[in-house]
Each structure stands twice: as C-alpha cells, then as structure tokens.
C-alpha cells in the first residue's frame, strides 16, 4: 500500500517510523529521502525517532533469555493434557458400553415382567385367569 503524500513540500513526520522500519514502498521512501534533504524540521523528527528505536532495541537486547529447561515444562504440560484427554475418552467409552448393555437388557426386562403372574388383590383387580390343567386322558384307557 502506498502512503498518501499529496505535496512534495509537506512534512512527512507521520511516515518516518515506517521509513526507518523499511516498511515504505520504494517510491515513498525515495520521496521521504528527497524531503529530508531539504527539511530541517523533519530531519530533527527523524533523529528523535532514531533515538526511540535505539532505546527500544537496546532495552530489548539486554533482556534475559528464558530458562533452557523451558521446553521440558512444555512437554510435561502437553503430556499431562494428552493423558487427561485419553482418560476422558476411556471413561466415555466404558460409559457407552454400559449404556449399550443396559439398553439391550430393557426388552428382556419387559419380557420377563410380562411373564410374571400378577398378584390377585380382592376388590382391586380380577383374579389371574386359571390355566386349564391338561386332562390326563390316558387314565381313561
């Protein structure tokens, strides 16, 4: 993207950070260079930004590095999370199997109940139908 620079003689102070950072396109950078040759105010601004950059980079360079053992802690965290996920999956799998077993038992339970003779309570329900005893006709002969 080309930053807007309407007039050659207009101050370019807002472009200076990007100019110093090498983030301006070639044409804009050239125009900034040309302007700096003739404008003392903008050269002063440029020096001020250079000082800010120096301060930032100097302070950053003197910062300490992270512990050399940091990756060990990272792997420990990753392994612990993987283990927890595996455990959760295992619990879910067991729960699912139990559910399957239970749901398969339901028709059997129903069947079993249907087979059971109901208890007769006088005045509340009818007595269960008496099964006819098979007649032993063999004795007649």
């Amino acid at each position, binding site marked *: *993207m080309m930053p807007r620079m309407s007039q050659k003689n207009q101050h370019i102070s*807002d472009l200076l*950070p*990007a100019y*110093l*950072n*090498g*983030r301006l396109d070639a044409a804009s950078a050239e125009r900034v260079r040309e302007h700096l040759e003739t404008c003392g105010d903008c050269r*002063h*601004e440029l*020096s*001020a*930004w*250079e*000082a*800010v*950059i*120096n*301060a*930032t*980079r*100097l*302070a*950053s*360079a*003197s*910062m*300490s*590095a*992270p*512990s050399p053992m*940091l*990756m060990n*802690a*990272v*792997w420990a*965290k*990753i392994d612990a*999370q993987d283990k927890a996920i595996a455990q959760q999956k295992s619990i879910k799998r067991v729960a699912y199997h139990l559910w399957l077993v239970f749901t398969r038992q339901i028709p059997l339970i129903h069947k079993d109940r249907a087979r059971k003779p109901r208890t007769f309570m006088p005045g509340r329900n009818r007595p269960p139908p008496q099964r006819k005893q098979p007649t032993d006709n063999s004795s007649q002969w």
Partner: protein
Amino acid sequence: MGMGMYAQPVTAVDERQITRRIAAGDREALGELYARYQRALFNYLLQLTPDYGLAEEILQDTLVAVWKSAHRFEGRSSLQTWLIGIARRQAHNTLRQHKLPIADETEMERLVATEPEPEAFTLASIVRDELAEAFRQLAPLHREALVLIFVHELSYQETATILDVPVGTVKSRICNARRALRAVLDAREEARQ
C-alpha cells in the same frame, strides 16, 4: 514480512512446513520453532509483565497452544505475527487469572494524547543507556507497540491485527509512546536538578 532482531529469516514455505509437521505431531518441529522464536516471544512477553517467572509460564502456555492449533495456521500472516498473537491472548488470560492489571487502553491513549509535544525535542541528544532505562519505565501498552514495530519490525497492519485495533490507533500509540518517553526523561531530568 518483518524478521526483527531475533527471528532468523525464513520463507513462507518453511513456515508452513514447520506448522504442518507440528500439526502432524512432530515434536522435533516444535523444538525447532521454539529455538527460532524463543527470544522474540519472551522479549515480547516481558513487555506485558515484568515478572520473569510469569512470562515463562505464559511462554509455556503459548507453545502448548501452538502444539494444539498448528493445523489452523494458513499462512495468511507471517508465522511470527501468528505466534505473537497467540502469546498475547495467553498473556491476557494469565494476567486475568492472576488478577493482575491489564492497562486500560482507552484511558492510556487519552492521558498521553493530551500532553503537548515539546517544541525542542531533543531525544536524539540523550545517551543510549538513559534512553533504554526510560524505555523500561514506559507503560506496558506503549512498550508493546514500540517493540512490535521497531524490534519485530512488523508493519502497522500486522501490529494492528495482533493488537486488535485499527491501523490509526497503532500510529497514534507509537506517537504517544514517544511522548511518554519524553515525559519520563523530563521527569528524570527534573529529579536530578
């Protein structure tokens, strides 16, 4: 693509390859990524918290998050921008969990923006050590913007993406950071007299 003073130059193809390897569960690839970006990420995190131990904890969480979400990297931004974005989110989560203050951005912008720009702006004449010391006294919000632009050498657009603010805010933030730096130096000068 900004390479900054820490990260070694890498091509977009390399970046996508390393994230694909991580997504496939290659532990060596995460180690390579860490070796390449550890200082850049750690330096960035130290701008958000002065606590070395906490910064290390956030860096660990950042790498765990990278391990889990490497498959989401599409190469739309540079790997460095993507990593700093993750580090920033992890930092904000951790700081919130520890109930540590996160700078009120709106208030910070308002306070600094009202300060007039000194006419005789002589930052360039101040010795580097003093400047670096003054930089350390800046608010995390200002240090963060300056480091992203001038150390990681990110563009305004990349910085705006990471900070989740418009490009105009990034520009005003680094100008405010410069004013704040001036104010710190003035205060030190006054204290000396």
